[in-house]
């Protein structure tokens, strides 16, 4: 049974329907990309999973139905959602931000150790743990958001457009860590991306959303050769 399964998930913002029945699944240990144009429903899909938008249909995580659980309850099940725009706490320090990732956990003592470990992935911010998070660059904030998510020891890591607005080197560094977490530590990853090239290169499976539905899915490698995907999202 997949770790995460969406069956016919619908979501709306007021009168506007954003998801018209999305079905997808993510296996334990897999890295999956969710691609699509602006407004295709990628972000809404993640929000439906993390409980930050009202949804219909069925979402199952680790054999449990998410139903109407609150975002904090869903986070406590082991889903870490790094939202678009990162959602870091600008007035807190880097270190405080990272430690707050452990809010879901009961084993208080291990949190500091895990926070140290999470920061080790990102030397650029590890050396500046006393700095106010709001003064970091965009790429560093994204790294911080990722490090914070790791401290919750998630079973599923969801990233929403981590490459948005970052310098190319920062994008490379970020995805290097995502691949490492997935391939060497076996972390399950679901990543929403506009940058299809790097997403397909970093994941095993991919879904393409179009107007709130899954239009296409397959192995990432296969999709990167798919003509429609190449024309629409890879630009060659």
């Amino acid at each position, binding site marked *: 049974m997949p770790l995460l399964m969406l069956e016919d998930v619908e979501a709306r913002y007021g009168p506007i329907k954003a998801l018209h029945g999305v079905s997808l699944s993510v296996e334990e240990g897999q890295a999956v990309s969710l691609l699509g144009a602006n407004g295709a429903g990628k972000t809404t899909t993640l929000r439906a999973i993390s409980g930050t938008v009202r949804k219909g249909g069925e979402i199952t995580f680790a054999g449990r139905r998410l139903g109407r659980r609150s975002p904090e309850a869903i986070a406590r099940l082991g889903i870490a959602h790094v939202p678009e725009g990162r*959602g870091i*706490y600008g007035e807190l320090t880097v270190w405080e931000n990272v430690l707050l990732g452990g809010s879901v956990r009961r084993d208080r003592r291990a949190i500091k150790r895990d926070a140290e470990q999470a920061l080790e992935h990102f030397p650029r911010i590890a050396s500046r743990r006393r700095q106010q998070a709001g003064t970091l660059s965009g790429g560093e904030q994204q790294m911080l958001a990722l490090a914070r998510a790791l401290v919750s020891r998630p079973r599923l890591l969801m990233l929403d457009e981590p490459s948005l607005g970052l310098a190319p080197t920062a994008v490379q560094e970020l995805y290097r860590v995502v691949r490492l977490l997935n391939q060497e530590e076996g972390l399950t990853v679901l990543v929403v991306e506009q940058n299809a090239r790097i997403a397909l290169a970093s994941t095993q499976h991919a879904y393409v959303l179009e107007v709130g539905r899954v239009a296409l899915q397959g192995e990432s490698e296969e999709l990167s050769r798919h003509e429609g995907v190449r024309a629409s999202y890879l630009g060659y």
Partner: protein
Amino acid sequence: MTEFLQFVVVGLANGGVYATLALALVLIHRATGIVNFAQGEMGMFATFIAWSLINHHGLPYWVAFFLTLLIAFLGGAAVHEVVIRPLERGSELTVVMATIALLVILNGLAGWIWAPEVKFLENPFPLKVLHVGGVVMNVQDLGVIGVSLVCVVLVFLFFRFTRLGWAMWATAQNKEAAALVGVNVPRIFSVAWGISAALAAAAGILLAPLIAITPDMGVIGIKGFIAAIMGGYSSLHGAVIGGFLLGVVENLAGVYISSGFKDVVTFGVLIAVLILRPAGLFGTAGTHRV
């Protein structure tokens, strides 16, 4: 000059009460986004509780003081759970109306429970004076300043050093992101209401020996608002400085101009601050990220 300093100290004592109230207002506003019009009444109600604990139950002053703070904390959290939380999905105006309703209810309840006659609370500090470099300072004033500073410092330490404090600060900045890392947002809000109510209680009890305890002492809440607005309404230290500043300005105006002119000067200063620095002395202009 020494006389001037003396009036400043007296002003700081009132200022401590305003600062504590302003801190309570700003804390609730920062943490939950709500402007609580019932803040002064919450302080008033708690002051009556303290009065009852001392005069009906024979508790020593400081025992009653801390017990009242605890009761206020629980009461504040309960108000959030019972009154505010069910309305939070509604518009801001709905919640504002609810706090105004709360103001009227608390005012009426206090009048009903504690009868109409005026009550007094002893001053826990001795009626003595200290001479410091020619400046005569009343120990009672220093006591009020001291206790309010302790309250302020405790709140700052809470935000600086406790996980719960960080979580509250994080929630204030980004509610959704806090929920996504598993912060229990409704509980954080309840704690914020609790702390805020306890601060208001401290302000009320500190104020009680200086004026009489009546259901109408809740109007002191307005002074808290002025202090908070002068400070910027979003900044905790701004609220505290605004409070002390207000106390001093008010007292100096009372002494050097006319005691009847006090409020004119206070509100004049408020308007001047708002014209010159619309975001308050320490506020950040309305940058709101969506």
